[in-house]
């Protein structure tokens, strides 16, 4: 992967103006609803706030797995998200993630693998084909986005470490450093953040490790420098700022299922039939849209992934 200084390309130029304008349309439409009969022009929108990433990633290929749906504007993707390491509201990550230092970055690989070790991120990325994957992202809280990630299949990396036959699951850990991550100074969750996948889920071609979005290096608030993206699962499975991968025989306990086992399971597959105590999962609000849309089984990726769960009671293994 070759990373160059930005060639004067700003996020606003990368997001097509037509997409940018969608929010204005949304506001205009709803304002019309709210203030029926009122007329007059609308004042111009404010400029996009810069993220923390921004370096352009060269040589991105377009993979076959992308959706044709219009992507959520860069500004929304980078200013509205959960990253509890930087605070529990959705604005804090963009505001506070500047303190995260992503270079140098190492990932420790351990457990049931032939080639454990502490790897430099550059070495892990060497030779990986960078691919754009435009995926739907469904948050457990009932909102969703369409995000053009840049990354590579997790399977590529796993093959390199040569897991043994005992490796049934892979567990991920985020960075734990309260000095860089102010949200970790309070125990809202048990730190570090932990997530896990069953081996066949981890090896699935849809599962990627992302290093960028919108053609640029990941902004810190979106999980730089390396994060997991599993598009058929709720967003919280997409662990950010990964520093450790552990191959294990027993199912890992993920952070949210440890915090509230009745609310969050290990699998966390998007499933409109299984509701959360706080949110009906039947519908979702796509950011930028007014009306809610129906949530699709496995977030619309059922054709590719439903076979992984054949014979499982998904109401029990939520």
């Amino acid at each position, binding site marked *: 992967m070759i990373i160059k200084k930005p060639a004067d390309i700003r996020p606003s130029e990368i997001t097509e103006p037509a997409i940018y304008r969608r929010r204005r349309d949304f506001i205009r439409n709803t304002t019309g609803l709210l203030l029926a009969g009122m007329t007059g022009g609308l004042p111009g929108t404010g400029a996009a706030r810069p993220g923390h990433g921004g370096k352009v990633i060269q040589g991105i290929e377009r993979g076959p797995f992308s959706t044709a749906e219009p992507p959520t504007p860069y500004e929304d993707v980078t200013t509205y998200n959960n990253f509890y390491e930087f605070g*529990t509201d959705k604005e804090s990550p963009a505001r506070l993630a500047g303190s995260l230092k992503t270079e140098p970055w190492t990932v420790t690989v351990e457990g049931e693998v032939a080639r454990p070790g502490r790897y430099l991120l550059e070495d892990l990325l060497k030779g990986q084909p960078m691919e754009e994957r435009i995926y739907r992202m469904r948050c457990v809280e009932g909102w969703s986005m369409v995000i053009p990630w840049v990354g590579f299949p997790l399977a590529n990396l796993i093959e390199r470490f040569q897991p043994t036959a005992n490796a049934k699951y892979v567990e991920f850990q985020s960075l734990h450093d309260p000095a860089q991550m102010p949200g970790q100074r309070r125990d809202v969750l048990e730190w570090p953040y932990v997530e896990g996948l069953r081996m066949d889920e981890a090896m699935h071609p849809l599962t990627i490790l992302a290093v960028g979005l919108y053609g640029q290096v990941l902004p810190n608030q979106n999980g730089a420098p390396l994060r997991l993206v599993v598009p058929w699962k709720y967003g919280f499975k997409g662990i950010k700022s990964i520093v450790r991968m552990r191959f294990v025989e027993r199912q890992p306990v993920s952070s949210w299922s440890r915090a509230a086992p009745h609310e969050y399971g290990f699998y966390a597959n998007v499933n409109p039939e299984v509701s959360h105590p706080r949110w009906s999962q039947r519908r979702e609000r796509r950011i930028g849209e007014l009306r809610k849309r129906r949530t699709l089984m496995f977030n619309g990726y059922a054709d590719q992934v439903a076979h992984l769960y054949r014979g499982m009671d998904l109401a029990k293994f939520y």
Partner: protein
Amino acid sequence: MAMPIRWRTSIEEWIWQNSIDLVVYRFSKTLLFLVCLLPAAGLGWQWWHDRLGANPIEAISKDTGIWALRLLLVTLAVTPLRRVTGWHGLMRYRRMLGLFAFFYAVLHLGIYLWLDQFFLWEEILLDIRERPFITVGFATFLILLGLAVTSPRAIVRRMGGRRWQGFHRLVYVAAAGGVIHYWWLVKADVRDPLFYALLLGGLLAARLFYSRRVTALLHRSGRTISI
């Protein structure tokens, strides 16, 4: 030389003081009315200028809910404040504060029914039945509705002061309901709902303290009364 000046000063002071009282008396309710509208106006302004972030509906839903709870707590603070400061005129503002709490609760519920669910009654009923925080929120709204419709003076008179007061004690249940509604909504970080729970606890404790003291005083003077 000194006397007339002092005399004049005191007259001026008297006029000044009385005109302040007059202005406070005449215009304070209008002023309070406008102040209570500020949060709604602020939200409207932000909506208009697209300053509510990526999920504006969530933002206005949360803000109107929080303002309903805040104003409910302010309403509950009137009586303890009156006792602490001795400013009995405060009572004149209580009804308006309570009605504004209801106003923000109406906005909050309206946003849920309309912009969140688009009047899909099937979904709404399921929400009320299945999601505890919505069950509590809805029950709280019904209480506030009952309190609001029985707030006009004519209805107070028709109900009789004692019965009216008994019924309006439900405001404590509503405030507790509001806090629980908020508490059950948050995922992990309970700091904000905890803050409001402590405020409510403080206000209830203040009431208990004063009602005990009043009971004791009345008891000492040889009368008993139930409070």
